[in-house]
């Protein structure tokens, strides 16, 4: 499985006590050079450097045709106050995920909203840490015997990263885990 990481995701995920699970879930992760430029804290830089050194994280070779696609996307999206800032690096990640048919790992609400209304990008699969944890369970990298076990892992993540998953999304995730346990 191939993934693309944006800055919002990686700065959160690197604080998680079980962050090494990400490299077990994905065969390779791609990052844009401009995303790297957004990273400054020691914690994030150390984590990203380790991933790069292991060859788990690779720099994406950005092309002219992708630059054209970025310019097109930017001009298509109407700036609406209900769509939080969509900065260039995060839009580049969306284009990369579409081109690679990869999973985009993003906590950027703006990106999630683009997927909801822009038909050209609606097929891009975007995961937050919640879906990432869920898929780590499905792949057997975290042992879960009940929905409550999964909830404990989610609470760990929320605690480590100062993150809260919306209750309706968490309920849906717990329901999917429950169905998977009964398979």
């Amino acid at each position, binding site marked *: 499985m191939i993934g693309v990481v944006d800055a919002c995701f990686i700065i959160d995920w690197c604080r998680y006590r079980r962050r090494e699970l990400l490299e077990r879930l994905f065969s390779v992760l791609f990052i844009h050079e401009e995303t790297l430029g957004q990273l400054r804290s020691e914690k994030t830089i150390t984590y990203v450097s380790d991933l790069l050194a292991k060859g788990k994280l690779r720099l994406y070779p950005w092309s002219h045709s992708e630059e054209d696609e970025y310019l097109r996307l930017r*001009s298509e999206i109407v700036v609406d106050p209900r769509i939080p800032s969509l900065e260039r690096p995060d839009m580049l990640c969306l284009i990369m995920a579409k081109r690679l048919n990869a999973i985009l790992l993003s906590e950027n609400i703006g990106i999630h909203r683009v997927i909801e209304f822009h038909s050209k990008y609606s097929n891009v699969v975007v995961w937050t840490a919640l879906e990432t944890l869920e898929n780590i369970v499905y792949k057997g990298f975290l042992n879960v015997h009940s929905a409550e076990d999964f909830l404990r892992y989610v609470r760990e993540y929320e605690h480590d990263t*100062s993150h809260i998953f919306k209750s309706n999304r968490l309920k849906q995730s717990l329901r999917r885990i429950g169905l998977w346990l009964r398979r």
Partner: protein
Amino acid sequence: MAEKVKPGRELIEKWVREDEEARRIRREKANWEFIEKQPPRIRFALIVFIETGDIYKASHIAGLTIDEFNELRVEAKIPIIT
């Protein structure tokens, strides 16, 4: 010139409801004592983050990268909500 792609009314109404709920949670969880002690620009940036949930906007105001601002956000106990 590319044609504009706009979200529908129902989607916008859903987002408004989601944003209101997220704002309520951020206000409730924030460590206001820590926020009040910050220099004016940082304090303003943290309050903008509480109100909007927009880490880019807030980090621009603070004059920091989003990674650096995230460290402050964690100290101020303002959750990211997704």
